[in-house]
């Protein structure tokens, strides 16, 4: 049991193994995203019932919540990858960290932007300096920091290690974002999704949101695999297996 787990875990240390396997995974995730996102968007925007207080303006939730949830989990993933990279010196972990940062930053921006658009009709203002919004803004800055550090250091391995340390340090912000709506009295409403409780909204509103979240996660995985595969090819360009791969591709 333990030895088979160890073998499974050590496979991740091989960029070649990851490159070969991730093609199939990325395709599956792409298909899931392609099904879930249009379905969730159409259901949410056209067929879900109106909110009794906010009317139709609540429908932006179908973009806002998935983006916000993903922006946070992406950072946790980066910190976890950084930890794995620092401890087990896995090349794939460094690659995943680097590839995830711009995607996470985009979703973080999307969450802030849709939040501002939602805030205007609901709170009457684009922006308030409350705990949830501010900590989300900090998260965006943290993403910028990781991206800047990655690109400032020439050597890929050193850059990966440095970014890993920064990610692990910055992860303290995640619980602050998560619990900001419970610790402080804020304008922002409490979490929409809780694993332990029944959702407060009716099923017809909640289900499309769930589909959207699954779709966005699948899209994130798809984009992450694409970027990671490119990064691996570039980093391993001097190895035999990449050269053989290129020769095979160009012959075909």
């Amino acid at each position, binding site marked *: 049991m333990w030895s088979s787990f160890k073998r499974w875990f050590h496979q991740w240390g091989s960029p070649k193994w990851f490159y070969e396997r991730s093609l199939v995974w990325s395709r599956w995730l792409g298909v899931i995203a392609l099904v879930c996102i249009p379905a969730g968007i159409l259901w949410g925007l056209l067929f879900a019932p109106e909110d009794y207080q906010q009317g139709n303006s609540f429908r932006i939730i179908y973009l806002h919540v998935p983006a916000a949830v993903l922006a946070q989990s992406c950072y946790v993933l980066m910190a976890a990858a950084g930890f794995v990279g620092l401890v087990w010196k896995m090349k794939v972990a460094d690659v995943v960290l680097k590839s995830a940062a711009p995607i996470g930053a985009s979703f973080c921006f999307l969450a802030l932007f849709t939040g501002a658009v939602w805030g205007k009709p609901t709170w009457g203002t684009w922006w308030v300096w409350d705990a949830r919004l501010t900590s989300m803004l900090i998260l965006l*800055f943290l993403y910028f920091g990781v991206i800047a*550090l990655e690109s*400032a250091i020439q050597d890929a391995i*050193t850059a990966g290690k440095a970014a890993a*340390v920064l990610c*692990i340090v910055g992860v303290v*912000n995640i619980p602050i974002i998560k619990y900001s709506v419970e610790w402080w009295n804020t304008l922002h409403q409490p979490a929409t999704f809780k694993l332990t409780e029944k959702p407060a909204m009716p099923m017809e509103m909640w289900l499309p949101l769930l589909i959207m979240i699954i779709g966005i996660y699948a899209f994130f995985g798809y984009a992450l695999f694409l970027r990671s595969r490119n990064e691996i090819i570039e980093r391993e360009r001097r190895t035999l297996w990449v050269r053989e791969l290129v020769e095979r591709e160009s012959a075909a």
Partner: protein
Amino acid sequence: MSDRSQPLNLWQVFFAVVKRDLLLAFRRRQDLANPLIFFVIVISLFPLGVSPEPAFLATSAAGVVWVAALLATLLSLDAMFRADYEDGALEQMILTPQPLFLLVLGKILAHWLVTGLPLILLSPVLAIMLHLDESLLAILVLTLLVGTPVLSLIGAIGAALTVGLRVGGVLISLLILPLYIPVLIFGTGTVQAAAAGSEYAGFLAIQGAILMLALALAPFAAAAGLKISASN
């Protein structure tokens, strides 16, 4: 350092690093003064740029002093490890048998003594110029006393990660400022709570908790950063 056969104990090493850094800083006094002058100038920009109205200044004084202290600290961070990195002293520190995080902690303490402490000593004067209520002066100084060590501690992580880079200065701001925001929020929050006449001990306790967390973890992160930078 006198007897080669006896290994130094940890405290001796720690204080040797502090003493060395203080001595180095004292030999370059102009560099010491620069962040302080910057601190004073930034604070004087606010009344000139925003409004010289005493009522406005009184409400924003704590925030202005805090932001200026934060920027002045940021300005001094790049120099924290750079000279040691360039002359090779840093590599020797990494090679010493004593744990690196302890030496880093010594350097952080020295950094705080030459930048954070002077800022704190200067801040009551500037707060009075900003018409801060006199009963709040002590609280402002207290928040800075608890908060500025955190600035040095977290800043050391950024300085360690960027010490090998030419563009260090700007990059440090980008890496470190997001992490400074909670320190700023609770620092000014304490003063504002006191100004509003409400209980501020809770804010101060959170500041203390942040300090303890940073004290426990930041030296390790900075030491890891230094090892990464030195291996490049």
